């Protein structure tokens, strides 16, 4: 099923196939990241989530349909992903906290919905020297950056102290799939060693309401 991009990726394709990817959160961003990871050729996919599919999720969580409402996201996601391709899915039905153990993976994709948990996971990724692809969305906008242990700033150094919102923000479905797509693209660059072309030491800020795509060069 990969004939249309295997040649494009060259030797990188085998690296992707052999890699382990952890997707933290299988909600909006995580749905797009998970589906594209399978379609790109990742074979070993670790999904972390503990929630069930809720009706308001369906505007942007593209792995799920009305039939999945009430089901554990991990189970619905696994079913959908295995319908696309033969992949190894490891389901981790846990809330990420100080006791969370990161499995041995090559890259972590941050699809979480709050900075408090992001900072906990990034701390653990740093200790295990695992690259961390951050994404966040709100309204029509989002941001992406790659945190690479000892090569970039830490996530908290980039953003500082953040007060998470109590209520879930309004979010435009298209920006969720856009940011998720950029995140999986960054994961491919990290796996394939294309650091210069990546968002390492760069923060991409997008706003679809005004079609702005801005880079901040971090130092």
């Amino acid at each position, binding site marked *: 099923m990969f004939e249309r991009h295997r040649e494009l990726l060259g030797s990188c394709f085998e690296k992707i196939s052999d890699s382990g990817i952890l997707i933290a959160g299988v909600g909006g961003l995580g749905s797009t990241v998970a589906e594209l990871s399978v379609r790109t050729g990742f074979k070993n996919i670790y999904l972390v989530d503990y929630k069930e599919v809720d009706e308001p999720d369906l505007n942007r969580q593209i792995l799920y349909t009305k039939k999945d409402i009430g089901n554990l996201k991990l189970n619905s996601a696994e079913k959908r992903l295995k319908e696309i391709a033969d992949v190894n899915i490891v389901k981790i039905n846990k809330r990420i906290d100080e006791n969370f153990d990161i499995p041995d993976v090559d890259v972590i994709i941050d699809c979480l919905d709050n900075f408090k948990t992001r900072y906990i996971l990034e701390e653990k990724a740093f200790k295990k020297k695992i690259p961390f692809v951050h994404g966040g*969305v709100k309204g029509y906008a989002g941001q992406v950056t790659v945190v690479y242990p000892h090569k970039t700033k830490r996530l908290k150094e*980039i953003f500082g*102290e953040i007060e998470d919102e109590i209520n*879930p*923000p309004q979010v435009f479905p298209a920006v969720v799939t856009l940011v998720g797509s950029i995140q999986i693209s960054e994961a491919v660059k990290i796996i394939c060693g294309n650091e210069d072309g990546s968002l390492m030491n760069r923060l991409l*800020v997008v*706003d679809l309401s005004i079609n702005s795509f801005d880079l901040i060069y971090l130092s």
Partner: protein
Amino acid sequence: MIKVVFKGPLRKSVGFRDLEVEDGDLENILRKISEELGVNFKIEGDKIYMRANVDGMVAKFMISIFYGGKNVITEKIRNFEGGVLDIITPMGGG
């Protein structure tokens, strides 16, 4: 002079305006931006908030400010001379 650039959703909140302000410390720079753009900043410990009028309603944003690509709070940058100040609001949803 320091060029001040709002990025992402904040661009709309300041009427798509960039501006230049005189060198100085952070408090003075934020005060000058407030005077020019009619927005308000509040520093609470390690957090910075901005209030702006968006579509006739007051909106409150938590913001991160970068000077030369460094977060001015986490890097404890006190004085600013020339260069670019980038201001964003981090988005936390997933």
